[in-house]
């Protein structure tokens, strides 16, 4: 608690201005290169998809077919779908890459995802009680979520959420936990049902009936292959996304802290509420550049291919302001998330006794102060 990092309102304003300057520069640079890039990704994704579907006709190539289809679904959901639906390519005026029109290869209707993700999650990032992405209404991912015996199942729920991730994402807007708690009725979710049913029908029809049927005698291998590709995408997306906000050191905020916040504070909160993953170029593409979650949260509507380009600059600015820039290799961030899932399953006094992994400093047991601009100590120590 001794090294809480705060910024004065003046510093926050200057910090925000530096971020706005990067933003302005990127906006001015948007053009041909960005358009060519996303079109090439789309071309690669569609080619892999068609190749994957076709390879199911060749039984020995089954693993190859599953691999191609898995990569296709990952690209479609992450580097294309997630980013296009953020409006990152709306400036292109291409209906095929427009946030209002894009629909992804996922059971969650894009319309509903955009509400809970673009609006709720990106506006109220890591504000406990407002950002439903903290634990998705299922998990305990923050110390300030009060422990209940239910949370003993945290690791089990996390594993289930990973396996059925696209379904979890789809059900996110139903806010089932609030229905269970009696704060919301099933009837309140009625406006969501039609879109969900339509999307479930379309997705299951093609993956579990039409394409298997088209391969005739190979119906079952194709069906299993399609299910596997969906599973691979689920596991990959879950892991990348959990590394974005849940590694040790990522800050959460109270509603009071974010009340009437300045633009500078919004940037500040986005930075402290996100974590990056280091890796190679292909890895970044496969994560939809969400390996640069920090840059994504600072500039959610700018083409994701730009995030690696500005990462060094963002980091340098953070260092100048004494703010921690949370990044690390996948295994370390994943390990950190896994430990948090297990630790928070237990009541706080028990969880605290779990061993501290080397290099992480103290475990982040910080009761959040009302101080607006606080960084947990392990963040400062990392």
């Amino acid at each position, binding site marked *: 608690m001794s090294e809480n990092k705060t910024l004065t309102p003046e510093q926050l304003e200057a910090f925000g201005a530096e971020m706005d300057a990067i933003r302005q520069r990127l906006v001015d640079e948007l053009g041909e290169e960005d358009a060519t890039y996303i079109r090439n990704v789309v071309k690669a994704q569609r080619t892999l998809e068609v190749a994957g579907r076709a390879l199911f006709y060749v039984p020995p190539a089954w693993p190859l077919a599953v691999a191609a289809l898995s990569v296709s679904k990952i690209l479609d959901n992450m580097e294309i779908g997630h980013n296009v639906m*953020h409006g990152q390519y709306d400036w292109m005026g291409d209906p095929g890459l427009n946030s209002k029109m894009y629909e992804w290869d996922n059971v969650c209707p894009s319309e509903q995802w955009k509400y809970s993700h673009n609006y709720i999650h990106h506006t109220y990032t890591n504000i406990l009680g407002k950002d439903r992405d903290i634990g998705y209404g299922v998990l305990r991912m923050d110390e300030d979520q009060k422990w209940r015996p239910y949370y003993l199942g945290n690791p089990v729920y996390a594993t289930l959420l990973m396996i059925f991730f696209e379904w979890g994402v789809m059900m996110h807007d139903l806010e089932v936990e609030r229905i269970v708690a009696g704060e919301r009725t099933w009837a309140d979710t009625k406006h969501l049902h039609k879109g969900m049913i339509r*999307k479930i029908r379309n997705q299951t029809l093609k993956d579990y009936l039409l394409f298997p049927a088209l391969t005739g005698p190979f119906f079952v291998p194709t069906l299993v292959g399609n299910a596997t590709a969906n599973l691979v995408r689920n596991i990959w997306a879950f892991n990348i996304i959990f590394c974005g906000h849940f590694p040790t050191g990522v800050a959460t905020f109270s509603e009071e802290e974010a009340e009437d916040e300045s633009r500078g504070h919004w940037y500040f909160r986005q930075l402290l509420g996100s974590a990056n993953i280091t890796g190679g170029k292909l890895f970044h593409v496969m994560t939809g550049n969400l390996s640069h979650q920090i840059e994504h949260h600072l500039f959610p509507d700018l083409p994701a291919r730009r995030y690696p380009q500005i990462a060094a600059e963002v980091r340098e600015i953070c260092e100048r302001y004494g703010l921690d820039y949370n990044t690390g290799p996948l295994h370390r961030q994943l390990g950190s998330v896994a430990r948090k899932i297990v630790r928070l399953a237990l009541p706080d006094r028990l969880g605290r006794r779990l061993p501290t992994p080397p290099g992480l400093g103290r475990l982040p047991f910080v009761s959040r102060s009302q101080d607006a601009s606080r960084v947990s100590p392990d963040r400062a120590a990392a």
Partner: protein
Amino acid sequence: MSLSLSISTRAPRVTRSEVPGGALARRLLRSRAVAALASPHPVDRYLELVHPMWAVDEVRARVVRVQRETEGPEPVTTLALEPTSTWQGFRAGQFVQVGVEIDGARRTRCFSISSSEADGHEALTITVRAHEEGLVSKYLATRAEPGLVLHLSQAQGGFTLPEQLPDRLLMISGGSGITPLMSMLRTLVDRGYDGRITFLHYTQGPETAIFRDELRVLARRENVDVVVVHTRHGGSRFTPQALAELAPDHLATATYACGPAGMIESVREVYGDSDLLRVEYFKTSTLQPADPDAAEGSVSFTRAGASAANTGATLLEQAEALGLTPEYGCRMGICFSCTSRKTEGAVRNVVTGATSALPDEDIQICVSQPVGDCVVDL
């Protein structure tokens, strides 16, 4: 010589590149079964990757010939287009929305079709003047080359000839307004129309006049009178008197007029509410961008039918102040929930400070403040 020139301005007859396999393949690709396999993406998203001219729903066209009509600071160019098999043809006088990619962004504008309806479904031409401020018109008129693929809408607009042609027609055009009327004139000649046509065209001078040679050839026909007035060289602008002299029977004649809004207004005054007059005028933005720091002009929300003086607040706030309830989310320009179409006027992005005056542009109303008059489809 001039005859051959007039023929070469016609749309070309070429074999279209289209989805192989003929009508059966196209029907299959349009079927619900194929749509279910391609879901959630439209089938065209896959076809376009194989060949830019393959489509079962969207319309695209390839530029097959480029012909410069006039030179000068605002040159005019005719582009001969070969559309995809999804093109349903057009009627003389109609226009088409043309989308072209410039620096990675697709810009879409309306252009009248200039070729003859008799050329069939396989071809069309548009004739484009490079307006000084016109990003798209300048690009099409000066930089388009054969092979360029454009995005097209189906032909639109009700400025067309009637099914039952009267035996006398009067056509009045000003400047670039000649293009749809040229399409009509060419169509009538191609179809062997034997009624009388008076074709009255106002243009600044011979150096900017388009279709001059072709009009000269057409004027030799017994049933076609062509009068070209050069306003910069002593000829007066459109007046009722001049019209009465040229076509004393004009009030009893089916008349088609196309040109700048001011000229069309004068023509309308002559005809009153006569249903013999059909007009089309170009949508030029008459709204002048104002000083971004002064809240000037008025804001209109067309679907709600509401308008008020511009307060300088964002469009979302101004809409809400008028009792509208547009969809919104973050109110800070990141979530795109509030994206709406601005049909006219200029807006300033309060985050980036960028001002944009493009017509029919999608904007985030939560971070856009009007600069002068502004019209939003809300």
